[in-house]
């Protein structure tokens, strides 16, 4: 890195910092808005987190201009991570067809009763 190059990098790092702070405030702000559906609440909340994650990984961790070796390590990791995160979703889709086959443990002294689940008051 030449000195001129470094100077421009410093600017980028601080800009990324201010953007991350702004996105943090935005995340907190939108969490108070009712979007009407769980999907949109999660989509917007986690979408902003993904943008922030990209900024940290891409700029602070220099993934935007890294060597091929690292990408090949990470592609495999990302593949398995998605697999890991989708397992519970696939499992829940199957279980949701029959609520009675799954009674969660909700506290140290009690199991949730089936009739409470079916009331859906929460």
């Amino acid at each position, binding site marked *: 890195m030449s000195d001129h190059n470094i100077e421009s990098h*410093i600017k980028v790092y601080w800009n990324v910092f201010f953007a991350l702070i702004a996105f*943090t405030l935005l995340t*907190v702000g939108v969490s108070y808005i009712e979007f009407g559906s769980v999907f949109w609440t999660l989509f917007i909340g*986690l979408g902003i987190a993904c943008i922030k994650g990209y900024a940290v990984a891409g700029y602070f961790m220099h993934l935007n201009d890294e060597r091929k*070796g690292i990408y090949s390590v990470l592609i495999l*990791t990302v593949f398995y991570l998605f697999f890991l995160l989708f397992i519970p979703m696939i499992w829940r889709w199957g279980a949701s067809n029959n609520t009675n086959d799954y009674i969660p443990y909700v506290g140290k002294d009690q199991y949730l009763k089936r009739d409470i689940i079916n009331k859906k008051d929460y």
Partner: protein
Amino acid sequence: MDIEIPYNVKEREDTGLYNSKLGIWLFLASEIMLFGALFSTYIILRTGDPTWMLHVKEAHLNIPLATINTAVLILSSVTFVMSWVSLKLKDLDKFKMYMGITLLCSIIFLVIKYFEYTAKFDAGHYPSTHNFYAVYFTMTGLHGIHIIGGIIVNAYLWMPGTKMWNTDPERFTNRVEVAGLYWHFVDLVWIFLFPSIYLL
């Protein structure tokens, strides 16, 4: 007898990387799977419990404090990257200043976490109280342990570790870069933990 460890500074021809950089990325890959498994568990427990949100509301998690903690951690990330840039510019004093701020931020993060935890304990909320608290304490606790690990390494690089700057500056700069990759990863995990546990 001095034996030189190869590829500490020079990049290997086959990977295009110096060895510790490849090493830290492999380690971070395993860390992604560790936290990924916990996030996966969190999804299972949350979607399987219709009373989950009730407990989240009752928990009264301190969002302003957690927001300040997020900002503190982001600040520590940028000061870390600036400490590495300072070494690239051959300015050891600035490195020490920025690394000092990074360490200060990480301690502030832990102090805030301490107040958060004690408030929960005082209210009689423990990991055994409900699955929500089990997830909350496990995930933020594991993240906190990572912060402590980072502080130990960063404090070493800040004080006694700087000796290497006089003998092998390039290798020292690489050490700081590798420690920085770990630190940014810890920041990255918090970026996802914060909305998942406190806000959504």
